[in-house]
């Protein structure tokens, strides 16, 4: 019988090959795919996040853990879909219009995906209209806005205003982040939450969907 703790360790250590092997063996032995995700993979990514916040892990460790998680998820995703398992929520994420920085956005995406969220990655230089379309057409429950420049931060406000104008603001939670962004700014523009790093973004997203 496969020791499923090995899956936890494979994700935590960023060993994609081991994550794939253990996942395949566990499935062959009849283990429930959802169990693999909720009891081993998500807790492993939570530990990655904890270590990141504690300055024990940095971006390389975070990225490589997310890659291992993704490798296993690619095997599990069709099985989960067939069983009707829904993600915690769908997150439409992007760097706002006028801003081309994507590292922070990509890290948050990786951690959210590792945390059980479905990611709709809209990329960089994303217009308010594209965020709105993701809410309307792809049923995003959360809109996550990233900006690195103080000059592009106002586009976060514009995006929220667009969601309001389109009458969908109450359907979604809006979270924002990026180096110059603060909780004060989030409060000023009417965002539902602010996170200062990729790991706490997962905690924030979970809180927002639990409300």
């Amino acid at each position, binding site marked *: 019988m496969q020791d499923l703790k090995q899956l936890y360790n494979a994700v935590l250590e*960023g060993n994609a090959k081991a994550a794939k092997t253990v996942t395949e063996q566990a499935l062959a032995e009849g283990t429930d795919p959802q169990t693999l995700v909720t009891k081993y993979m998500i807790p492993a990514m939570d530990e990655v996040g904890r270590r*990141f916040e504690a*300055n024990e*892990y*940095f*971006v*390389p*460790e975070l*990225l*490589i853990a997310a*890659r291992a998680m993704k490798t296993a998820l690619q095997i599990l995703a069709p099985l989960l879909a067939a069983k009707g398992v829904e993600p915690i929520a769908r997150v439409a994420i992007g760097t706002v219009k*006028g801003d*081309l*920085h*994507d*590292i922070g956005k*990509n890290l948050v995406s990786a951690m959210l995906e590792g945390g059980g969220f479905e990611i709709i990655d809209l990329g*960089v*230089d994303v217009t308010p209209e594209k965020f709105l379309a993701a809410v309307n057409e792809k049923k995003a429950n959360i809109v996550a806005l990233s900006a690195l*420049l*103080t*000059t592009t931060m106002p586009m976060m406000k514009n995006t929220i205003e667009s969601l309001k104008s389109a009458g969908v603001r109450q359907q979604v939670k809006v979270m924002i982040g990026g*180096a*110059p*962004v*603060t909780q004060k700014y989030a409060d000023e523009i009417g965002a539902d939450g602010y996170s*200062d*790093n990729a790991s706490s973004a997962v905690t924030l997203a979970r809180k927002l969907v639990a409300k």
Partner: protein
Amino acid sequence: MQPMTSRERLRRCYFNEELDRPGVYSRTGFPSSDSTYDRLKAYLQTHADLKRGWRGRAFESPAPTEQSVEMHTEDFDRQMTILHTPAGDLRFTYLLSRKGQPGLSETYFIKSREDAEAYLSLPMPGVAGDVSSFFKADGEMGDRGIVDVGLGVNPAGFVAELCGSETFAMLTITDRDIIHALCERQMNVILNNLRFLLERKVGPYFSMAGEEFIVPPLHGPRDFWEFNVKYDKPIADLIHEAGGRLHIHCHGSIKSVFKGFLDIGADVLHPFEAPPMGDITPMEAKEMARGKLCLEGNIQIAAMYEHTPEQVRHETQSLIKTGFNDHKGMIVSPSASPYIRGKGEDCFEQYKAMINAVLERQI
């Protein structure tokens, strides 16, 4: 104390000697063709201590590349560069703003270990040329300041740029040996170039950037020492052996790696940013730098656009009180160049307030 010329003041900053007042300087990467900054440029020219950049890496034989540009969107063009190596072509694409805004590297030369090996197959560039423009620039600068010999991006930062931050991060775990090989190659490229300059008496003020690719929270202290310190230190040592000084520009959360800059042998460090952009207060920076390193900074650039002149004046006074209590090692400066297109007039009074607060500190 007799008032110093800007040239003497900056020399003393770089050599950590007693000053009549802090230096005051602004980086000059203004938005191109933006006349709203003309008044600020003129003011800095007459009131700030000046540093004029001189490209110290312009003498390397260029890599064999081809470039083409195509329209990407109404806002951006896509610029493709193909680098021909003996082991095959490498491609890099860049989105170039059609409206004068910052661009974005889209794909990178090195996407895998195989690409890295291809890059390593390139022959080392030769170094040749006429450096007389340095001495001309230095003569023109006279007592108004110094000429800063730019060495470009440091070895590890250069490798991070070749790979892109994410691929670089992954390779530092999966293929650490190849990252070391790339850093070592680039260190030798810079050392060859530097020897060429030093033999021709160019100097003594050199600058380097790029360490910021390998600082927290992107990379941990271990990577900072293994990639930045290891490959920067021989460059700093060579500069020091020739009686020169090294300025390093590095954004990020530098508190936990501050000692690493001392280990490199940096003589001036810009910037030192408090939260939310960084993690180090002026007091913490000064305590670690005292007697060893000149701090250049740190009025956050956003303050120049968002705070009132009076706020900037207070911020500058507070900075001087903390960072200049030994009358050494301080150049007051914003954290970055003025960068917002069309907003030159909006920040003029703030720059003036910063400079006046420094000028008032004349001993």
